[in-house]
C-alpha cells in the first residue's frame, strides 16, 4: 500500500467509525482487520470510498446530517431522504418531549401523530386540552381502533382537591399540596406556610390523620383561612381573593366532595379544559395530576418504563418562566424515573429552564421570532451554520429535532406528513365511562357558594327583569312612577334626588329597554304638553320580583 495511503488511513478510519459507515457486515469485517493492523489496498479503497461518498452526501444534505435513528417505540417522521426516524420514548431510556413551534407550524399535527402512536402503548394517558380542543377529535379515532379513551370536560369532573393518594402520608402530602395550590392560585410564596398549617389542621379535624377517607373540600380551606384573622394579612388576603373566583366558577358541583373520583392513572382520558379560566384549569390540573406524581414517587418506583403519558397542548401556562416554583414544574425532574412521560407543545420560547433541561427530546418547528430560534438552538446544541439555516429551512410540517439519548445525538431535520381528522367532536361532549356513576361523598356546602341564577343561560324571550339586573336607582325610579301616575316626568328628578340630565338619561334608557312608555299630556292651560310616563308590564313584574327578593 502506498505510503501516503498509510498516513491518512487512520483519519479515514476514524471518520468512518464516527459516522457509522462500518455498521454493516462488510464494514465490521473491514474494521476488525484494520484494528488488527491488517490494512491492504482493498480495505483502504473500500473504506475510503465510503468516506468520500459520505462527504458528498453531507455537502448535499447541508448542515444537518441524515440521522441514524431506526429503532424506538415512536416514529417521529421522515428524514429528507425519506427514511423513517424512530426514537425511544417509553422505554427505560425514554424521555419527556417538548415541541416549540409558532402558529401554523404543524406542531398539533406532530403531537397528534405522536399521541396516536404512544397512547395505545401506555396503560394510562392524560391528554389535556388547555386552550383549544386539539386532542378531543382523537377520541373517535381511538375508539374506532378499540382503544377506550374517555373525554371529560372540566366542569364534568368531580374533584376532592385534598384527597390524599393511598400510599402517601397526609402529613407528607400537605406541604406538597400547599406548594401546588400556591402555583395554581398565583399566590405569594409566603402563602404556602399558611396553607400548610390550615391543611394539617383540617386533616386533623376531619380525621384524615387517623385514617378516614373523608377529606376537607376547598370550601373548608376557604372557611378555615377566613377564620384565621391572626394570620399574616397579605397571605390570608391573597388566598381568599384568589380562591373565591375559582370556588364560584367551578362551584360545589365540581369541587364539593369529601371523596370523589380516583386519580385515573389507569385510564386514557382527554381533559377538555378549553373555555376555563387559567386558575380554574390550574386547580383541576393540581387535583388530577399532582396525586399521581406524588404517589408514584412515594411508592419508590424507580427507573420504570413509561406507562403513563401526560400531554399538554398549548402548554405555555405550565412551562412559563413566570410561574413560581412548585406544582407540576417541581415534579418534572422526578417523574421520568417513575414511569411518566410528559409531552409539552408551546408556541414561544418562554420556557422555564427546568423543562428544557429535563426534556431530552426537543423539537423545533417554524417560529415567529429570532429569540425563539436562539433559545432552541442553544438547547439543542446547533452550530451557527445550522442556526442560520433554520428560518429558511423550517416550513409548516418541517422540524429540527434533537434526541439527547440513544445512538444519534446530532440535530436532524425531519418532516411530518399532514394528517387530517375527518370526525369532529361537538363542544361539551363527554364520554365519562366508568366515572359516570362513580360513587362520591358529597359535602354540605354553605349556600353562599350556590351558583347564582345569573349563570344560567336563557333565550331572549325567557329573560326576566331580575336577570337583566336593574340597578337600585332604576328600581326606585320605577316605583316612583307607579306611585305617582300622571306626574310629569320633569318632577321625578326632584323625587329621585338626581339632576335633570341624569333623570332624563334614566328615563330615555328605561324607555329604550321597554320598562316605560312616554305619553304627551297637556297639564297646563297654555297649550304646552308634558311627558307622562306609563310603566309597562315589564316594569310591574320587575318591581314585584324586587319586592319579593327583599321580603
Amino acid at each position: 500500500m502506498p505510503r501516503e495511503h498509510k498516513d491518512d488511513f487512520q483519519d479515514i478510519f476514524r471518520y468512518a467509525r464516527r459516522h457509522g459507515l462500518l455498521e454493516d457486515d462488510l464494514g465490521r469485517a473491514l474494521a476488525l482487520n484494520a484494528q488488527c493492523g491488517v490494512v491492504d489496498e482493498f480495505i483502504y479503497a473500500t473504506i475510503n470510498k465510503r468516506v468520500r461518498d459520505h462527504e458528498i452526501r453531507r455537502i448535499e444534505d447541508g448542515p444537518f446530517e441524515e440521522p441514524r435513528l431506526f429503532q424506538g417505540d415512536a416514529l417521529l417522521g421522515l428524514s429528507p431522504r425519506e427514511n423513517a426516524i424512530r426514537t425511544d420514548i417509553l422505554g427505560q431510556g425514554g424521555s419527556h418531549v417538548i415541541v416549540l413551534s409558532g402558529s401554523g407550524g404543524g406542531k398539533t399535527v406532530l403531537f397528534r401523530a405522536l399521541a396516536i402512536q404512544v397512547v395505545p402503548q401506555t396503560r394510562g394517558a392524560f391528554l389535556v386540552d388547555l386552550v383549544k380542543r386539539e386532542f378531543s377529535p382523537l377520541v373517535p379515532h381511538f375508539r374506532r381502533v378499540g382503544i377506550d379513551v374517555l373525554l371529560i370536560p372540566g366542569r364534568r369532573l368531580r374533584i376532592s382537591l385534598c384527597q390524599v393518594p393511598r400510599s402517601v402520608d397526609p402529613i407528607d402530602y400537605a406541604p406538597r399540596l400547599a406548594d401546588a395550590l400556591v402555583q395554581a392560585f398565583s399566590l405569594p410564596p409566603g402563602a404556602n406556610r399558611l396553607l400548610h398549617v390550615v391543611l394539617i389542621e383540617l386533616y386533623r379535624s376531619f380525621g384524615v390523620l387517623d385514617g378516614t377517607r373523608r377529606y376537607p373540600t376547598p370550601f373548608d380551606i376557604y372557611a378555615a383561612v377566613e377564620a384565621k384573622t391572626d394570620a399574616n394579612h397579605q397571605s390570608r388576603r391573597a388566598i381568599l381573593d384568589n380562591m373565591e373566583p375559582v370556588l364560584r366558577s367551578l362551584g360545589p358541583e365540581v369541587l364539593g366532595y369529601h371523596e370523589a373520583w380516583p386519580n385515573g392513572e389507569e385510564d386514557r382520558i382527554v381533559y377538555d379544559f378549553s373555555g376555563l379560566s387559567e386558575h380554574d384549569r390550574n386547580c383541576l390540573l393540581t387535583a388530577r395530576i399532582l396525586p399521581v406524581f406524588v404517589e408514584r414517587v412515594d411508592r419508590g418506583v424507580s427507573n420504570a418504563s413509561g406507562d403513563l403519558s401526560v400531554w399538554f397542548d398549548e402548554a405555555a401556562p405550565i412551562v412559563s418562566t413566570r410561574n413560581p416554583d412548585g406544582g407540576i414544574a417541581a415534579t418534572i425532574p422526578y417523574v421520568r424515573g417513575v414511569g411518566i412521560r410528559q409531552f409539552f407543545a408551546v408556541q414561544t420560547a418562554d420556557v422555564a429552564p427546568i423543562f428544557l433541561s429535563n426534556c431530552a427530546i426537543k423539537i423545533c418547528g417554524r417560529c415567529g421570532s429570532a429569540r425563539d430560534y436562539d433559545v432552541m438552538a442553544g438547547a439543542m446544541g446547533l452550530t451557527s451554520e445550522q442556526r442560520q439555516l433554520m428560518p429558511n429551512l423550517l416550513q409548516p410540517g418541517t422540524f429540527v429535532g434533537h434526541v439527547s439519548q440513544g445512538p444519534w445525538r446530532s440535530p436532524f431535520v425531519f418532516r411530518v406528513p399532514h394528517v387530517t381528522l375527518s370526525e369532529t367532536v361537538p363542544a361539551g361532549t363527554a364520554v365519562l365511562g366508568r366515572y359516570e356513576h362513580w360513587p362520591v361523598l358529597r359535602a354540605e356546602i354553605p349556600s353562599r357558594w350556590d351558583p347564582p341564577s345569573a349563570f344560567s343561560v336563557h333565550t331572549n324571550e325567557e329573560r326576566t327583569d331580575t336577570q337583566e339586573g336593574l340597578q337600585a336607582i332604576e328600581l326606585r325610579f320605577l316605583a316612583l312612577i307607579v306611585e305617582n301616575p300622571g306626574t310629569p316626568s320633569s318632577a321625578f328628578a326632584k323625587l329621585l334626588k338626581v339632576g335633570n340630565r341624569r333623570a332624563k338619561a334614566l328615563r330615555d334608557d328605561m324607555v329604550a329597554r321597554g320598562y316605560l312608555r312616554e305619553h304627551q299630556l297637556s297639564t297646563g292651560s297654555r297649550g304646552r304638553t308634558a311627558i307622562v310616563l306609563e310603566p309597562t308590564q315589564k316594569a310591574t313584574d320587575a318591581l314585584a320580583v324586587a319586592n319579593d327578593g327583599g321580603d
Partner: protein
Amino acid sequence: MRGGFVHNVLIVEPLACSFLKHGATVIREYPVRLDSGYGAIDLWVKIRDVRLAIEAECSVDRIDRDCVKAAAAYAHELWIVVPTHRLARAVTRRVTRKRRADGPLISVFPLAKALQRVSQYDFLLSRPDSQNEKQKTMET
C-alpha cells in the same frame, strides 16, 4: 274598565276624583241603550239636576258614537276630554261639522282645562233654559 293608561289613569280617574270632591254622583262605564245595541259612557256625572256625560278620547275616531251615546242618555252636556290641545282642536273641528241642534251641549277640553272647569263649579248651579224645557217634556 276598558281603555289604556292614558284613557283610564290619566283622564278618567282624575276627573272622577275631582267630581267626587265636589259631591257629585259619579258612575264609571254608565250603560246606554242604543239602536245598534248597548254602549257605555266613560263617566256619568250627576250633580243636583245636571247630567254630564264625559268621554275620554285619544283620537277623533269615536266622536260620532260618543255624541250618539250622550243623546241616548239624555245628558245635558257632553264633555269630550282629550290629552292634548292639538287633539282638542282636531276633535272640535269634527264635532262642529257633526253638531245637532237637538243634541246635548258638546264641549271639547284638553285634560288640564277639564280639570279647571270642574273646579269652577258655577256651571253646575243651573242648566240652560232650553235644557230645562226638554227635561220637562220628557217627564211629562
